[in-house]
């Protein structure tokens, strides 16, 4: 566990290229993730933001091949670099293969939106934690127990020895999310995927959980992929941001660029729609016009054009923009920039 190199931020842990995850329903195909590219550098926190239905959760689920039928990864690669020349394309693995199971829970841990239902009510916290530990680490029952208690302690659960034998329904929502984090980190993963980890919690608990995640990152050094619709959380936690709209990445940049120099009209609109200190738009917020289109009827051309305030009439309705690289770590998918960069 100690041979990991938490190297420079340029060292890429996860490289996602051309990922497409579709849902084949009776009513038609929903292209939930439609050609997503981004990278996760080692040891950093990357935020994935967007409105509901933009495909951010499906992207996260695709990384561990957790998308269920009728969903399917259609194309693309998800290359995990576990150090040195150890590269594995997760998207190419069989969904019930030993290799994939060794990545799930060991190299990549995951926590979910609903701490109330993400743990089974039938087994103790201890059972569910040691299950993961014993699957991935060559330890005896006692050692697994010690490790679990150690982790419970690390996530700030009081009296961990007693909590070890408790059932999840005996814990509060915040405590359960702590247990989830302890479980996800128990095998010392290189990446923690957190799918809206604080959405279902009350505000004070939210702050505690986020703080805990930051503190644990310092302690364990893993990368965090934080999926959220809350830009405030992004500003606080992330060093890099991926903005998604209708299954596509529309902009990716470091957090300062996103907040101070956003280039995509959607990112701009998102930022205008949230209250921010020091930016008083005459006391009014500007919500984004319209709503996310019906998934079965994607707009042609740029998917954002029906809601865009800077539309180039005659072009945006027909031309699907490519990615433009504005500088080494700032990309944007918009015709406005394709024009200016040739």
């Amino acid at each position: 566990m100690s041979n990991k190199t938490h190297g420079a931020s340029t060292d890429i842990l996860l490289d996602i290229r051309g990922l497409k995850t579709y849902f084949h329903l009776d009513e038609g195909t929903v292209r939930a993730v439609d050609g997503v590219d981004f990278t996760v550098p080692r040891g950093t926190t990357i935020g994935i933001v967007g409105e509901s239905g933009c495909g951010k959760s499906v992207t996260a689920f695709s990384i561990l091949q957790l998308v269920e039928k009728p969903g399917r990864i259609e194309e693309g690669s998800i290359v995990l670099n576990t150090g040195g020349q150890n590269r594995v394309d997760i998207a190419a693995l069989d969904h019930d293969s030993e290799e994939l199971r060794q990545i799930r829970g060991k190299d990549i841990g995951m926590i979910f939106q609903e701490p109330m239902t993400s743990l089974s009510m039938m087994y103790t916290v201890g059972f569910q934690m040691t299950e993961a530990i014993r699957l991935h680490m060559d330890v005896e029952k006692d050692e697994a127990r010690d490790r679990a208690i150690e982790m419970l302690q690390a996530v700030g659960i009081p009296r961990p020895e007693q909590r070890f034998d408790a059932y999840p329904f005996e814990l509060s929502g915040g405590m359960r999310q702590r247990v989830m984090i302890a479980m996800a980190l128990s095998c010392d993963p290189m990446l923690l995927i957190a799918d809206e980890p604080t959405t279902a919690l009350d505000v004070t608990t939210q702050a505690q959980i986020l703080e805990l995640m930051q503190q644990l990152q310092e302690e364990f050094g893993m990368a965090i992929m934080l999926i959220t619709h809350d830009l405030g959380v992004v500003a606080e936690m992330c060093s890099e941001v991926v903005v998604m709209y209708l299954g596509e990445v529309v902009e990716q940049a470091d957090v300062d660029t996103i907040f101070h120099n956003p280039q995509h009209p959607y990112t701009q609109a998102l930022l205008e729609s949230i209250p921010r200190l020091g930016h008083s738009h005459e006391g009014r917020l500007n919500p984004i016009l319209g709503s996310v289109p019906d998934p079965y009827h994607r707009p042609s051309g740029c998917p954002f054009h029906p809601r865009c305030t800077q539309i180039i009439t005659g072009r945006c309705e027909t031309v699907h923009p490519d990615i433009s690289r504005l500088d080494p770590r700032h990309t944007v998918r918009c015709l406005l920039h394709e024009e200016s960069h040739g």
Partner: protein
Amino acid sequence: MIQYILHRVLLMIPTVFGISILCFGIIQLPPGDFLTFYVAELSAQGESVPEAQIAQLERQYGLGRPWYVQYFLWMKNIITKGDFGRSFTWNKPVSDLIWDRIAFTMLITLLTVVFVWIVALFIGKYAATHQYSLGDYIATFFGFIGLAVPNFLLALLLLYYSLKLFGLSPAGLFSPEYQDAPWSVGKWIDLLAHLWIPIVILGTAGTAGAIRILRANLLDELHKPYVITARAKGVPERTLIWRYPVRVALNPFISTVGWTLPELVSGSIIVSVVLNLPTTGPLLLGALLQQDMFLAGSFILLVSILTVIGTLISDVLLAWLDPRIRFS
């Protein structure tokens, strides 16, 4: 937990009381009482009953006194002496006749419950994890057939075909050579060799229902977040399904025993009549047709009470299996 069991046992008392009233009602419903029948029967054969014996029986069962006195005496005799009254057709105490029969009924019912559970568990799990596959459709279709075909019809069909194809009747629980033999290893094996037929016939309807329930519950559970959590931990798919969603889906499944058991007992009575099994069925039917009401009433009483106890045990089992109930 102990408090829960106590609570359930206390709730059972009014039920048992109600059953006893109901059964006493059934005994009392036909005109006349068993003594009149008994005397009429004997005098028809040219025998007479000594006055003293009549008087003694009258006193013992409170005949001619108000119904609640009779009920009280009936219950008192059952509880203190295990005396359920007399069967006039057999001219024997009821208690001499029923225990063997009740034991066989319970044996068959219990084995059927086990059969239903095991079969339904595997088929239901398969149908749910392979939703809309050919196997799922077949399971669903058989589910409907199983519900629509009364099990005495299955028994009749079985009788007919075994008669037509093998020229023998599969009726009874023992081969002729073991019929009256004392219990031995051979007799047990012979019993088991005969027992599977009524079990399969009886279990069909219950299995069909149980598959439907398990499939529906499991389909609800299969996509719950805790299943995804377990998958994200790297738990192998096979282990995962059994350990997580099946474990939860099992609860409503076990609690269905509450109604499966009464149904199985009901079914076993008719099937036993058709297959001529030495269980409650044929004797109860005979008693009812002859209006031998003490015998019939006692059978109904015991079968019902044992069913209620069985339901209680299943509820306690369920509570013990489900930590949410166990700890509340």
